């Protein structure tokens, strides 16, 4: 026994996974799918099972205070139904994780991330007397991406009127579901027992809109094309309490750090700024975690790298010195020619 768990949608995902390629993240077994599905997301719409994203519920009287101290941006100012993206750092200022924090109620929050960090957050929450619970197994979550995503939901009976980074609960023909826009496209949350019904309803509604199921590979590619960084794929989060690396500025993520806010590890957030940029290769060979050279001098390194079916070439996220990050700069990565370009590589599939 591998000890891997199945997501609530596993039955439908297994049918749809024609290539029968599987991978595992967060202890769940997931369909990899075909990279071409990322391109399909730009035509009609795709559905990806993201029930494996690590989610914790944070509840308590002092939850707002805790959350505010935890993240690099002040989440206690959120109203119920709103969310923000931020990082959380260890004491020295190294990035431990990045994710989205949503306020569910007056004293209740939810943190969503692709890499788990339960132990550290639970210990930290104990200092405030706040209860932290891993709720990953308590919901099934699907994401709908693509220009027709909104139309599919409307056809399914979910009239959407959500702004970005917002959540709302619905009663949908007998089922309790929640709809959100935390990332690109929409997320649909439901109870594990209702998962297969939700899947079938969405696909029935999506028939006129070229809706296809997609695997994790497609999602990775879409994230990369959008310039979104993922802990684990792109950088190794700091796992002990005191290491400085990686720092937000060395990852080019200073945009997610609010200097005026007081948060754990604030002291370490000074240092040379690097820029997060995109790299376009002149071939279809990806080069993750590779040093980038300009005229023989190292100016940065690539993070995650994949082949984009829309661009038909390999792309990568990279952190570069500020002067090397101007779009169009020619660089080499492990001998392969490439050049920088501004992020995002391609506009998000959901935007018109």
């Amino acid at each position: 026994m591998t000890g891997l768990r199945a997501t609530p949608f596993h039955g439908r995902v297994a049918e749809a996974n024609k290539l029968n390629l599987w991978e595992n993240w967060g202890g769940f077994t997931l369909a990899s799918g075909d990279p071409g599905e990322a391109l399909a997301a730009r035509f009609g719409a795709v559905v990806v099972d993201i029930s494996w994203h690590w989610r914790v519920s944070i509840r308590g009287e002092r939850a707002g205070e805790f959350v505010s101290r935890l993240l690099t941006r002040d989440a206690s100012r959120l109203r119920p139904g709103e969310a923000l993206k931020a990082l959380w750092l260890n004491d020295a200022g190294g990035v431990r994780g990045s994710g989205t924090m949503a306020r569910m109620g007056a004293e209740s929050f939810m943190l969503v991330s692709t890499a788990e960090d339960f132990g550290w957050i639970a210990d930290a929450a104990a200092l405030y007397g706040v209860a932290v619970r891993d709720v990953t197994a308590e919901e099934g979550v699907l994401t709908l991406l693509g220009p027709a995503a909104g139309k599919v939901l409307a056809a399914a009976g979910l009239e959407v009127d959500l702004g970005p980074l917002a959540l709302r609960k619905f009663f949908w023909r007998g089922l309790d579901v929640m709809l959100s826009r935390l990332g690109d496209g929409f997320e649909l949350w439901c109870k594990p027992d209702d998962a297969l019904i939700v899947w079938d309803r969405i696909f029935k509604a999506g028939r006129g809109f070229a809706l296809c199921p997609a695997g994790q590979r497609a999602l990775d590619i879409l994230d990369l094309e959008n310039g979104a960084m993922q802990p684990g794929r792109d950088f190794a989060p700091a796992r002990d309490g005191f290491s400085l690396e990686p720092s937000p500025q060395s990852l080019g993520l200073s945009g997610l750090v609010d200097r005026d806010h007081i948060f754990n590890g604030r002291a370490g957030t000074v240092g040379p700024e690097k820029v997060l940029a995109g790299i376009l290769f002149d071939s279809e060979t990806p080069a993750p975690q590779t040093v980038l050279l300009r005229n023989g001098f190292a100016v940065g390194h690539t993070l995650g790298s994949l082949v984009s079916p829309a661009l038909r070439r390999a792309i990568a996220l990279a952190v570069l010195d500020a002067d090397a990050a101007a779009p169009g700069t020619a660089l080499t990565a492990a001998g392969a020619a490439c050049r920088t370009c501004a992020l995002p590589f391609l506009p998000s599939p959901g935007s018109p």
Partner: protein
Amino acid sequence: MRYDACIIGAGADGLAAAATLAARGLKVAVVERDSRPGGRCVTREFHPGFRASPYVDELAPIPADIFWSLDLARRGALLAPASSSLPQAADSLRCPIVERVLADAATSAKRSLFASRAPHAPWPGEEFSARTLLEVLGESSAASTERAHLLASVLDGRVCDPALAGSALQLLAGTRGGMAAGGLGRLGEALRGAAEEAGAEITCGLEATDIKRKARRVAGVGLADGSEIAARAVISTLDLKRTFLSLFSWSELPRALVDRVGAFRPVPGTARLLVALEAPPDPRAGMDASTLRGPIHVASDAVALDDAYRAWRRSAVPERPPTMLRLVSAVDPSLAPDGAATLTVTLGAIPHTPFDGAWTHEKRDRLRDTALAAVETVWPGVAKRVLGLELIVPPDVEHLLGVSGGDLTGGELAADQMLGFRPFADCRGSRTPVEGLYLAGPSSALGPLATCAAGVAAARAVMADFAAGRLK
């Protein structure tokens, strides 16, 4: 003002050539007869709310380097992966042939008396010139529906006799470059963006009427309004016959050249029907989502294909033309309003002018009914859901796009008109016997094989000839 290059025709090849030349700093002018650039790369709203690409759904693949260097994906041209797989042998030949033409273009050799004695390097794909299509597809002489289907998908609406030597060259022509999100018009816009951003000047609405020469060398292009664009080099993306027989007066060209151009055979054979449906057709048993997204060949057998080909040769409209359906809104929902569907029907073996006279309304209606009957065999009851239609026959293609005979492929894909013989056996890499004139477009060697490649090859030839000092 004297331009370095004037490009006639702002289709895929013309815009790619313009972008390539302008990116190198040359002054480029593009002249287009239509009110908008794009050529075949257009999306037309043929019925309120319903859009489709009128001439083809998919073009030949764009070579990867050209796709990257023109940055087409980031300009909005998103091409779905190819819809079906064809024999690998042919697909893998495309790259070497493109490279061969680009290499020829980049070599600027002074034409000498001894040039014809130079050893002639064989072309990749040349072995197809002697083989039949049936043999390469690996079929026996026995008739079978699968063989007919495979044949129909290779030919894709082009007309050819698959049992004749030389028909295997049909495999080299590509129409599997992928559908574009939003229709081919997005590709046209992306190319236009690339050309304009590089600095090319695109003039629409003016037809090029003739090519001016000074002392046997090209000096510029004369336009319909009487004005003239002076240029050191001219790239024509029109087909061979249009280029030489309508842009020059016959007396100023050598007789051998006029004969050769006259003997170049177009094969007009494709008609298109664009259908607006108020609802998608009911799913049929055995047709899953991915089948619906690909081309559907209406059940044809070898006898029907044979009869249709023979009817075409007699200039008669076949009773059962090879028909290919594409539910384009199943791939790209933006092509139809919510809940509706857009369907394109491609009919093969349709003669340019039926033997009993031009295309009258009755004949068009009859062809339209034949096409709808074919659709009905796949999805019974569809005819009741039709909201609007548009039929395009070869003379319409000729009129709208300016291709001789309405043949989008630019000339028969026969052994004596392909690869090294397309169009001139003794001119290499887009050059023509007229000094300073270069041919991109469908009648050039890369025309039927790959989109944009012929334009880039012509641009490279122009740059090589400038560098060698051959065009002052």
